[in-house]
């Protein structure tokens, strides 16, 4: 069944989603959203588990797991033998970093836009294992072209020959930048540096062919842009590394191989994984990447332009090829009359929490290069009015003082 003629925006929202009354949702990027049909299917699956746990945990989960891996792998152009499921990208990152046989003085290269939790995991590995350094190469606006990013990474690598592994975002979290990872992987290969791609935001938002891309490791969430319940993500590990890249929880399948080890991490609820095939089907039924991305890009173009006009600020200068499909930044004006909204992590948290709690608009705010930016998300249930609401609010807030 294809639903190609359904209209994105309010109609889709009404037909396929369910949200709390009175709230505006323009932050799909942080936590994703689960369509009603997937929510129902998951409840049904939980009932099956609970009506006969023995049959489920001893047997029925296995074909569900392999079907989910097959579907996820196909969706990402991957060999299913190289794909395992983890609860989120942070777990994927931790799995690699903490299994890796680090040597003393090994260093890691990340960026100034690396997701905070991932950066912490890198620091933890360094602290824990061998006391090496974490370097972060700068990504800063304005960005003229992709080459700039590649060059910055390459010079950082040349400056620090002890870098053993580069941790690179496919789409950066705070800044919604689609990085030129193909070229970056090439530069790393030239220098025999391993590459771990944090693709937390990428599945469903960017074209991915993992066997072609061929990094050393790749992790990506399905519970953001592919509509599965949380937590549901993949970890792709190059065949050469599968021998040592064991999971965080050692359990019954110790030494039984990559697939079996990750498949069993103690008794828990893995039903989010098993909804991957249904979620991918929903994604396709909604029109698939072409249709969805076309809609969200246009909506963000219009919304961001409107927002920048009304706030009298600007959009960061980045090449169009580096624009993420579902997320975009808008520079926020000074809130200097508001003590709580300093241009810091704390200030950004205060701002989005207040906007959520007091004004019932869910959005994301990030501090970058000494400024606060709005990170707007767009998905198939959004329309222009959602962003107008936020613009109205912010203008009002700023007028008040």
């Amino acid at each position, binding site marked *: 069944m294809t639903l190609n003629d359904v209209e994105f925006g309010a109609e889709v929202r009404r037909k396929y989603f369910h949200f709390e009354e009175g709230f505006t949702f323009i932050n799909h990027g*942080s936590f994703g959203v689960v369509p009603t049909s997937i929510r129902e299917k998951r409840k049904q699956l*939980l*009932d099956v588990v609970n009506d006969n*746990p023995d049959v489920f945990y001893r047997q029925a989960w296995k074909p569900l797991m392999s079907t989910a891996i097959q579907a996820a792998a196909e969706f990402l152009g991957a060999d299913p033998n190289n794909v395992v499921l983890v609860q*989120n990208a942070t*777990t994927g990152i931790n799995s690699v970093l903490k299994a890796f046989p680090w040597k003393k003085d090994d260093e890691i290269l990340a960026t100034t836009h690396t997701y905070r*939790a991932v950066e912490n*995991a890198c*620091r933890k590995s360094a602290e824990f294992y061998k006391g090496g350094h974490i370097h972060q190469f700068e990504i800063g606006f304005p960005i003229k072209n992709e080459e700039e990013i590649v060059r910055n990474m390459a010079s950082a690598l040349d400056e620090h020959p002890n870098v053993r592994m580069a941790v690179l975002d496919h789409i950066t979290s705070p800044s919604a930048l689609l990085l030129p990872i193909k070229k970056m992987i090439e530069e790393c290969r030239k220098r025999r540096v391993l590459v771990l791609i944090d693709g937390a935001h990428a599945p469903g938002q960017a074209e991915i062919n993992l066997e072609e891309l061929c990094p050393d490791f790749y992790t990506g969430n399905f519970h953001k842009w592919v509509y599965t319940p949380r937590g549901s993500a993949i970890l792709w590990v190059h065949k050469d590394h599968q021998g040592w890249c064991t999971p965080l929880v050692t359990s019954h399948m110790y030494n039984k191989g990559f697939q079996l080890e990750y498949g069993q991490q103690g008794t828990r609820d893995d039903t989010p994984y098993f909804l991957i095939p249904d979620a991918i089907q929903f994604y396709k039924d909604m029109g698939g990447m072409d249709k969805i991305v076309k809609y969200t890009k246009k909506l963000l173009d219009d919304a961001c332009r409107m927002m920048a006009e009304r706030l009298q600020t600007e959009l960061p200068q980045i090449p169009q090829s580096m624009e993420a499909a579902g997320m975009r930044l808008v520079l926020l004006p000074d809130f200097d009359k508001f003590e709580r909204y300093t241009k810091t992590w704390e200030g950004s948290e205060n701002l989005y929490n207040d906007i959520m709690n007091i004004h019932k608009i869910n959005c994301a705010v990030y501090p970058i290069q000494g400024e606060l930016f709005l990170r707007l998300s767009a998905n198939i249930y959004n329309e222009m009015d959602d962003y107008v609401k936020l613009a109205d609010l912010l203008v009002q807030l700023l007028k008040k003082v």
Partner: protein
Amino acid sequence: MANAIFGAAMKKECFHFEEGVTFLNHGSYGAIPIKIRDRQKQLHDELNDNPDLFYRQTEYQLYTQARDAAARFVGANPENLVFVQNATTGVNSVLKALPWRDGDEILTTVHTYRAVANACRKVAEFSTGGHIHQFDIRFPIKDEQQVVESMTSHLDKHPKIRLVVLDHITSPTALVFPLSEMIEECRKRGVLVFIDGAHAPGQVEINLEELQPDFYTGNFHKWVFTPRGCAILWIAKQHHDWCTPLVTSHMYKKGVQLEYFMQGTRDNIPYFLVPEALKFFSEIGGMEKIHQYTKALLDNVTSMISDKLGTPKPEIPKSMEAPYMRLVLLPEYEGYPAGTDEGAERLILDLMRKHRINTAVCPAQGQLYLRLSATVYNQLSDYEKIAEVLNALPRK
């Protein structure tokens, strides 16, 4: 509901199971009352209707409420208690964070849960290069002293042992260990103690601040009726600074409580059902009332089955009998090689698939043992069925 009778009446009123299946294996995967299942679905709806609000705010409140309730239930200072998804994860969290020295050794037992033994081996391979020792516990067990002595003689023979991993209630053999004494003996020798209490919450009294091991992990999704996976990890104060979780995330270096709370975006709702589950537990009568029922039932059915099969009962002291689980020695069967994992697994699956009876079978001392569970929805007729089936199986 306080007047609900255990057995078929409670099964009908409070639970929902697949028709025509006999459930004698609560110990492996637990079972969730309808009320708790419904509440879990409600929380899923709340989360999905407003993920931002849930993850940025509601979650932490629900987590601390649940943690405090769990802490009260196990006599713990809530500051020392965190949630993990299951006991296996609890064990892995400690073992993989511990600052091992080269050559450190670990002591377990021959009845240690396979996954836990594997985690010990992984750590030995990974961090220490040291040995894993297992002290023996064999039927007949005369008294608790026998078990304590088996442990202490191992400790004295192998001074490099840094950590002992002891079950509160063993998984394959349903034995309650004399923990207070065993912990004391470990302390005397300066050895760290990790208690794998996977089966303990809801089955035996626990007072963690009194017991004072170094670490304790226990599932709530077995005998406390929460959804899976929901378990606690208790960490003695002196270990808080290094005992960090498996997933390093936003709360890195912000302390044990915050670090374990935040392990990336995922479904933590099973933890939040602890208060409801504890309410259910107390409404149906609490531990004492359930014990009375299950102990009598298990005494009855184990005699009935072992008489029928003509096998002797395993000799263990009454004080070491688990209230909700009991072993029955199986005769040697054709096609189910005694004392092997293969034999045990095949028998479990055949019973499950051919006869629609869910149970557990464990190899020990060259034999196969039936591990029967009994809880509030079980009654005599459940066990009569399996007695017949087992008696009819061709023997060697």
